[in-house]
């Protein structure tokens, strides 16, 4: 349900890092407790790709499509894992219920499951004869 909003946020960050270069692939890491449906996220990604400006072309021609057009969104899903403070057991959760599957205790520590990260992205290399993209700008 909130996947489109999330995609917009991802696109903002990605476009900033791309600094005008064509984006090929974006890798996200998302915890199970974030209630994100990966398939919905990738559909939403395709929906908004065309809303972004075209890439800067090193050859001066105006390329078709936006910097994000055709890019692939990869979602690495991280399971929700809790560690029980009472019995020490570490378990992966099937449901968002923060309880120890071993002893049933509620005093659990969340080890993973709240990740919400843009890990990395691939951009197309500018042609060697191009003016060169401002790489330092991309590292900001």
């Amino acid at each position, binding site marked *: 349900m909130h996947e489109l909003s999330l995609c917009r946020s991802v696109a903002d*960050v990605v476009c900033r890092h791309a600094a005008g270069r064509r984006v090929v692939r974006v890798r996200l890491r998302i915890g199970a407790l974030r209630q994100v449906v990966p398939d919905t996220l990738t559909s939403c990604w395709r929906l908004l790709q065309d809303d972004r400006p075209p890439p800067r072309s090193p050859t001066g021609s105006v390329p078709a499509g936006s910097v994000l057009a055709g890019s692939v969104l990869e979602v690495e899903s991280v399971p929700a894992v809790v560690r029980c403070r009472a019995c020490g057991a570490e378990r992966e959760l099937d449901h968002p219920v923060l309880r120890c599957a071993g002893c049933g205790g509620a005093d659990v520590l969340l080890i993973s499951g709240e990740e919400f990260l843009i890990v*990395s992205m691939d951009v197309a*290399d500018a042609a060697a004869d191009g003016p060169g993209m401002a790489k330092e700008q991309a590292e900001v």
Partner: protein
Amino acid sequence: MGRFHPHGADHDHPHPDHDHPDDARPDHSGYGTATERIEVLERILGENERAAAANRAAFDAAGVTVVNLMSGPGAGKTTLLVETLRRLAPRWRVGVIEGDIETSLDADRLAGLAAAVCLVNTGKGFGGECHLDAPMIASALPRLPLADLDLVIIENVGNLVCPAEFTVGEDRRVMIYSVTEGEEKPLKYPLMFRAVDLVLVNKTDLLPYLDFDLPAFRRNLDAVHPGVDAQMLSARSGDGVDAWCEWLSHAVHPGPRVGRVAGAA
């Protein structure tokens, strides 16, 4: 058409429309097919969080406490807000940021309650967003006399998912759940129930007419957010509204924020 069509090494489809000269960039972009990997390692909502920190700094500078009120549609946010303003207006100077996808109906209901009301229609210029985010709140701030206020209540867009993700620089997050919604809602919308400091259980005047299982609800709530505060109330009958206002008055710290932990620092 017009989509980027990378012709990489895995060329497994024919191109009847054109040939690729060996020296041309096959996608006509001027870019080679080689890619450069950029480590990003940024939080997905990092941009929103930065805007939220700026809002927080503005709230701190004005010495105003901000409560973000969230719920699903129809849980009773506006009715509770009307009752809350009636009780608080004599004690505190209150501002309201009213978020709605369309219409000013909710904001109209708050007219004449001695509060500074500022409407944010997320349908206009924000693409019909189903939540308020930090930049939207930032856009509303110039329309509120922030320095003259003790408390700002944000009535978020009615939605049990998205508002939970987008912090706006608030001090406290409160959600209204109503007993007509079913006991299992914490399990279905854990993101929201986990995101808040207080759960208000509204419409208790309807309990005699429902099969609502309060202990089951509390169990489900504890399962996703162990130990979170919950208060029963009926905005319609007024039961429990004073206790909620008492909670609010503890949240409000009038005057400059000396020694407060500011996320914006």
